[in-house]
């Protein structure tokens, strides 16, 4: 039972000042084993804050990140799953599923976590799963100002992933659950 937090596009301090208080009160140290951050934090203070939640932090570079040492893409293996991280502004058209699927095949991962669109998405496409945790602060995106703060918590348990989606809609935290099992046929063979 491994808890992985997928979060990103906070854009602190440029587009937002902080996480919503309801999110902040839920994210306490000691519960989460890994944090995957899609990028655009954008300053070191946010990095330190996330590090305090969990020492195992993986960040990829977004176009507004002030730390230029983050990688463009990252892969890691947690339990039976291979996860890939990429901010997503590099994949054009932005948010296009086929292009993301290309990236997924390139990285050879089961679950690809990307951001940039500031919109939560969980898709099964061409043998892999794409998860977009959205923006944790609800910062405006390149397309729209109408963004609900959201982040994702994955519970990886053997061959099964339970994805908990936390969204702040009208001031209330809404939690959704998605179940996903890895089977032998999930990965498309080439």
């Amino acid at each position, binding site marked *: 039972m491994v808890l992985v937090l997928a979060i990103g596009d906070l854009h602190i301090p440029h587009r937002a000042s902080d996480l919503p208080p309801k999110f902040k009160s839920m994210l306490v140290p000691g519960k989460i084993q890994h944090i995957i951050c899609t990028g655009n934090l954008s300053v070191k203070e946010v990095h330190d804050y996330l590090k305090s939640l969990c020492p195992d932090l993986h960040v990829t570079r977004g176009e507004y990140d002030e730390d230029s040492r983050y990688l463009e893409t990252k892969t890691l293996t947690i339990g039976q799953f291979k996860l890939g991280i990429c901010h997503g502004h590099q994949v054009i058209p932005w948010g296009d599923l086929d292009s993301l699927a290309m990236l997924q095949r390139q990285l050879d991962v089961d679950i690809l976590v990307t951001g940039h669109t500031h919109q939560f998405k969980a898709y099964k*496409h061409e043998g892999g799963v794409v998860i977009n945790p959205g923006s944790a602060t609800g910062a405006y995106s390149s397309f729209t100002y109408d963004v609900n703060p959201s982040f994702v918590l994955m519970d990886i348990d053997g061959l099964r992933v339970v994805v908990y989606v*936390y969204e702040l809609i009208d001031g209330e935290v809404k939690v959704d659950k998605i179940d996903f099992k890895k089977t032998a046929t999930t990965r498309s063979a080439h």
Partner: protein
Amino acid sequence: MLKGKLKLSAKAPRVFPDRIGSLVSGFDDKEDENGESDSALDFESGEELEILQPSGAGSGREIEDGYVDIMEGQLESRVRQRSEKDGSGLVSVKEVIAADEKRSDLEYELSQKEINLEKLQRIADSGLPEGRGLRATTWKQLLLGYLPPSRDLWEKELTENRQKYAKLKEELLLSPSEFTRIKEEALDSNEQNADSDVDGPLRRQEISHEDHPLSSGKASVWHQYFQHIEIAEQIDRDLQRTHPDMKFFSGDTSFSRKHREAMRNILRLFAKLNPAIRYVQGMNEVLAPIYYVFSTDPDEQNAANAEADSFSCFVRLLSDSVDHFCQQLDNSSVGILSTLSRLAELLKANDEELWRHLEFTNKIKPQFYAFRWITLLLTQEFNFQSILRIWDSLLSNPFGVQDMLLRVCCAMLLCMKSRLLTGDFVANLKLLQHYPDINIEHLLLVARDLSPDTSSYRLSP
């Protein structure tokens, strides 16, 4: 006095000097005949062996002079196995015969249809023999009230309790992921992940009002799990430190890890079932002798179920002293402070001079040294074998464990009287907090002979 521990293979040759002649070798044969040494060798290799303490002047035993001269010379180098019956130093044929008698007495008692509790208690009080699982059976069955006196019911009780334990484990030690999965499977067994093969957005299920990992509701399985993790970590840390000198508990072998795992389950379960006291540092020490005795039972079935049996007995044992662990009850009439003052009263009643010296001259309060003695049932003050022997008496006392415990504590003070009277605050505190080795039989004798003040301190609700 020589005391040390050597790690030798379990089949270390016994160095018996030929000079002693037939007497000792006669003893040797006797031991082999009993087959007892074999059962004691059921431990995995590498069990530690103790160098005997040559009983010197302070033992208070009747010893034939001839023996003393010869023996003392040889004892320094002899290594005995733990099958030494009553933990004292000397080999004497008389003792062996006495021990044998005791064993057969005990076996006779245990084989009765209806166990005579009193008789058993009396035998146990004089020290239970090692080997053949006698201690395990005795402790389990009657002293801790685990098994009923009627022999026929043993089988039934045992299986029932063991099943209950297995069920408890299942319910309470589950991780929240497994818990939610099982719950789901129970609810919608028809719902399949049919979209496993279909591309597209994954189906979402709204669960805002149900449980999720970041929930902080009291009823949340996740929340309870995280709260419990801290306790589990503490338990783990303590288990690593349990009896580091014993291969049974410490080290990195799968053998010791299995035992630590079992003990961890027991302690975690106990913590979950008792949210008022949860886990307190030191409970692992109280559990250690029980678990050790049960899992070294030569009877395979018993040994395999040692975890379940230890759990039940551990619960029973602690229920006696559970109030000592609860901080809120410290100052109440059932708390630890009241027990400590009872100890002081007992000392006063038996040896006013010593009491006065400690209380007024040294200004040492019982809290400074006896807290650990009482809450941990003396497991931290003596070596493992002595603990087992002392517990034989503690558990067999018809007036209850606490009563005997106070007596033994008082006896510990009395046995050190001469040193205490000449010591100052620092020296005495140091002495009492690192209690020196003494002859256990003597200690228990003194304890038994104390004036029975504690009977008047029976707590009536």
